C-alpha cells in the first residue's frame, strides 16, 4: 500500500501548488471554479477526480495558506469561496522558486548526452 500512497502525495503536493497559483491569478474562487480552471490549464493531461480537490483545500486552509467563507456564486447559489492569504502568497513564491529549480535541474539531466560525460 505504501507505493500508492507516495504517488498520491506527490500528486497532492502539485495539486496544492496549482490551487495556490490559480487563486493568485484569478482571485477568490469557489471549489468548482478552481477545479474547472485546473482542468482547462492542464487540458486532458491531468485526469484527476474533481473531488480530490477538497481534501487539498482543507489541508491548505489548515496550514493557513488559504482562507474560506460562504458567498453567492454567479447563478446565486450558496458557495464557499477560497482566497489566498498573505502566508499563502509567500508559500506560493517559495514553492514556485523551488519548483523552477527542480525543473531546471531535471531539465539539465535530460539535455545531457552520454558523450558529455566522457
Amino acid at each position: 500500500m505504501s507505493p500508492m500512497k507516495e504517488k498520491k502525495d506527490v500528486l497532492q503536493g502539485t495539486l496544492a501548488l496549482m490551487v495556490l497559483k490559480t487563486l493568485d491569478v484569478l482571485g477568490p474562487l469557489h471549489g468548482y471554479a478552481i477545479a474547472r480552471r485546473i482542468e482547462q490549464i492542464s487540458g486532458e493531461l491531468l485526469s484527476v477526480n474533481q473531488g480530490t480537490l477538497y481534501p487539498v483545500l482543507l489541508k491548505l486552509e489548515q496550514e493557513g495558506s488559504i482562507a474560506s467563507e460562504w458567498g453567492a456564486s454567479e447563478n446565486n447559489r450558496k458557495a464557499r469561496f477560497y482566497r489566498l492569504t498573505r502566508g499563502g502568497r509567500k508559500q506560493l513564491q517559495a514553492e514556485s522558486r523551488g519548483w523552477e529549480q527542480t525543473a531546471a535541474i531535471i531539465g539539465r539531466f535530460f539535455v545531457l548526452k552520454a558523450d558529455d560525460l566522457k
Partner: protein
Amino acid sequence: MRALRRFFKRLGSWARTHQDEERLQAEIEEHLAMQTSENLRAGLSPTEARRQAVLKFGGVEAIKEDYRAQKGLPFLETLAQDTRQTLRRLRKAPSFTITAVLTLALGIGATTSIFTLVHAVLLKSLPVANPAELYRLGKESRCCYTGGYSQDREFSLVSYDLYKFLRDNTKGFAELAAFPAPEPLFGVRRAGSSEAAQSYPGEFVSGNYFTMFDIRPYAGRMLTDTDDQASTPPVAVISYRLWQEKYGSDPSVVGSVFNLNDKPFTVVGITPPDFFGDSLRNSPPDFFLPLNTEPFVETDADLNKVDIHWLDLIGRIQPGANPASIEAEMRVELKQWLGSHWGEMSASDRAKFPSQTLYLTPGGAGISSMREQYEHWLLILMTVSGFVLLIVCANVANLMMVRGMERRRQISLSMALGAQAARVIRQPLTESILLSLFGGAAGLLIAFAATRLILHFAFPAFAGFASVPISASPSMPVLLFAFITSLVTGIAFGIAPAWMATRVDPIEALRGASRSTAGAGSLPRKTLVVLQAALSLVLLSASGLLTAALHNLENQNFGFEQDRRIVAKMNPRLAGYRTDQLSLLYRRIHDSIASIPGASSVALCLYAPLSGGAWGSGVWVDGHPPPGPKDDNSSLWDRVTAGYFDVMGTPIIKGRGISEQDTATSRNVAVINEAFARKFFGNEDPIGKRFGRKPGASREFEVVGVARDARYVTFSLGRPSGPFFFLPEAQAEYSQGNLGSLFLHDIVILTRPQVNLSIVQVRQAMASVDPNLPVISIRTLREQVATQFTQQRLIARLTSFFGILSLLLASIGLYGLTAYNAGRRVNEIGLRMALGANRGQVVALVLRGAFGLILFGLFIGLPLTFAAGRFLGSQLYGMNPYNPVTTLVAVLALGLSALAASLIPALRASSISPLEALRTE
C-alpha cells in the same frame, strides 16, 4: 511551525466533526449542481448530466474518508475507540481483569517502592539551590578523626587550620564551608525550664554554611560569619522539626536561651522545613552551632588542634569556574600547608608526603555516606524486584495469550473482512497497556505502603529524634518511573500475544473449527513458563543465601553472653562533667545501679560490644623491632571498669581479667584478645609482655590476661575479629585533662536469673546519682545486637518475600499452561484410556509435559543462580556463594510447587471418562 498550526486546527476540527461534515456535504452538493448545469448546457439529458457530474467528481465516500483523515486526528480517534472497546471487554471479564491488575500491581508496586528508596538515597540532591554548583572534598566519606600530617589514598578530612588555609587561598569557590565529620549529641534544656536535659543531635558549622547552601530562614536568621568568631556571644539555629514537635511552634523560641551541654546559647533562627543538613542520614541535626563555639561546648575541643583532621568540606564554586582547576589549585595548597608543618611531621608523615593528594567530587548530594552504605543492597533489591516484574510480565502475557486464543475466531473473521494487521495488533496492545496502567495505579498504593514499611524497618527512628528524611509519598520522578514502568510492562507482556493474534489465517474463520488451532501458540507460552521457573529459581536461591548468611551472622559466637545483660547509654559530657570528676562519678553510678535488687553485677566501659563505636591506636611491642611506615600495627581498644569480663560473660583464656587490684597506683596493665596475641606475639606467651600506644613508650602496659575474641565493631562482620585490648578505668590518664576516651558511655548490667529489671529502676538509680545526667537509651544487649543486623534482616526478608512471590506466580503460570494443554488433549486422553491406558499413565503423561518445562528452567536458572551468588558478594559475610545446600533447597522448592501446580490438572485429566471424552468431538 506550519505543522504545529495544522495540528491545532485538526485538534479543533476533530472536536466539531459534525459541523464540518455538513460543510463538506454542502460543498459537494453545490459542486455537483454546477457541473450538472454545465453538462445540461452542453446538451446532455438531465439524468445523464447528473451521472457524468458524479463520475467526474469521483467516489464521494472515498473523498469524504480522505477529507476526514485530513481533518481530524485519526490516531486519537481510533485510540479513543480502542480504549472504549477495551474497557468494555475488560468489564466483561472481571476475573481476568482483577487477576491481571493485581499481579501487575504487585510487580510494579514492588519495583516502584524500591525505586523510591533508590531515588531518595542514590539519585536525589540536597534540597538546596543549584546543587550542581556544590563540590565536596574527598571521594569517599570518612569518619571521624585522623591525626598527623598524612592520610591514606586521599586527604579527605581537614583540621580547622587547614580549612582556613584552603578557604582563604582557593579563589574558585564562592563559599567553602566546613563542618565536623562526627555527629555529636547535645544535652539540651531550654533555660528556665524545669525539665531534665534531653539529648538531640547537633552540628557545628562554619559561619558561611547557610550562605553556601543558600538556605533562607523559616524564622529569625541563619548563622553568619560574624557569629563564627571566638569573641561573639554564642548563638544557635534550631531545626523546624524540633521547633514544631518539641516546642509546639512557639514563636518565642527565637530569641530565647537554650542550654546546650549546660552552656547558654541564644537561638536566632529556625531552618526551613525541608532542610536536613549536609547529608542524608538517620536522625538529622536539630541544632546548628557556629564552629568557633566548639571549644566553648566540648570539654575536649578539636578546633585549635592543627593536626587533628575532623572537618568535611563542601563549597559552592564560582559561576563558570572549572572544578578540575580548583582541584589542582587545592592540591598545591595542601602541599604548601603540609610543607609549612614539616617540623612537626613524623618520619612516616614525611615519607608519605610526596603521595599526599586530594580530590574534589560533586557535592550536590552532600556527604553521601549513606549512599555508599546502602548502594549495594539497594542495587540487589532493585534487581530482585526487576526479576519479580519480569515474572509478573510473563504471567500476564500467559493470561493474555489464553485470551488471544479465545479471540482467534473473531480476529480471523475481521482479518478476512479486510482489517489491517496494524489495527488488529493495536487492540490487544491497547488492552495490555490499559491493564498495566491500572496495575501501575494500584501499584502506587502498594509502593507507598511498602516504602513506609521498609523505611520503618531499615531506619528505625529513635524516640524524640528526627527520622530519616525520606518520604514514602511518591514524588514526581517516582510517579514518572511508575508510569514509564507500567507502559513498558504493558508493551512487554502485550506485544507477543498481540503479534500472535494476527498470525491467523483468515480461512480459519470460514472453517469455523477451533480444533484447527491446536498446537499454535503453545511454544511462546512454554517459553514463558521456562523463563519464570528460571527466574524464580534465581530469586529463591538468592533469598536462601541471604537468609543463611543472616542466620550465620545472628548465631555466630559473639564472644560474650547476650542473655540477662542490659546496656544503658549515657554521656557525662552532656552534663558538663570535668575529667577530674569522672572517676568518682563512675564509682557512684556503679554503686547506685548495683544496689538495685535485681542487679547482679555492673561494669562501665567506653563502648559495649556492637554499640557502634571503638577507639583505635597503634601498638608498639616492647622488645620487637618498631613497625615500618607501611606495616599495619593498629588495634582497637576499650576502657573498662573492674569485673567487666564477668559481667559481659567473655571467658578469660589465660591470666586474669581487669579487677579491683588494678588501681591508679599499681602498675599499668592491659588484657588483650586472642587476635591481638596472634598478631603481635605470635607463638610467644603474651602474659607479662609489655606494649604501648606510642613509639618510644612500648613499656606502657603489661599484659596480664588474654580474653576470648569478641565482636565489638559493627563492620567487617564477615571476617574474624581484629586485635583488641582492654585497659582498666582506674588507671586512666585523668591527669592528662580533656581526653575524649575518659568519658565512658556504656553501663552494662547483669541481672539476676528470672528477674526483670525495669527501665524505670535504672533511670531512678541514675537520677539518684545526678538528675542532670541524661540517659540516652536503655535496652537489652540482645536488642542491641539484633539492631546491628536490621539491614541484613530486611534485605533477607524482602528477598525471601520476592522469592516466594515469584514461586507462586511461576506455579500459577505452570498450572494455567498445564490445565490448558490438558484440556485441549481431552480427546487424545480419552482415546488413550479407551485403548487401555490407566490413570497413572495419564497423570504421568501430563506431569511429564510440565516437568520437562521445569527441567528446562533449571537448566537455564542454575548458571544464573551462581552469577547471583557472586553478585550478592559482600552481603553474604564470607559465606560460600556457591552453597550447594541452598541451591538444592531452591530446586526442591521449585520442584514441589511445580508438582502441586501440575498435579491438579493431571488428576483432573485422568478422571475423564473415555466415553465422554470421545463424545466431545
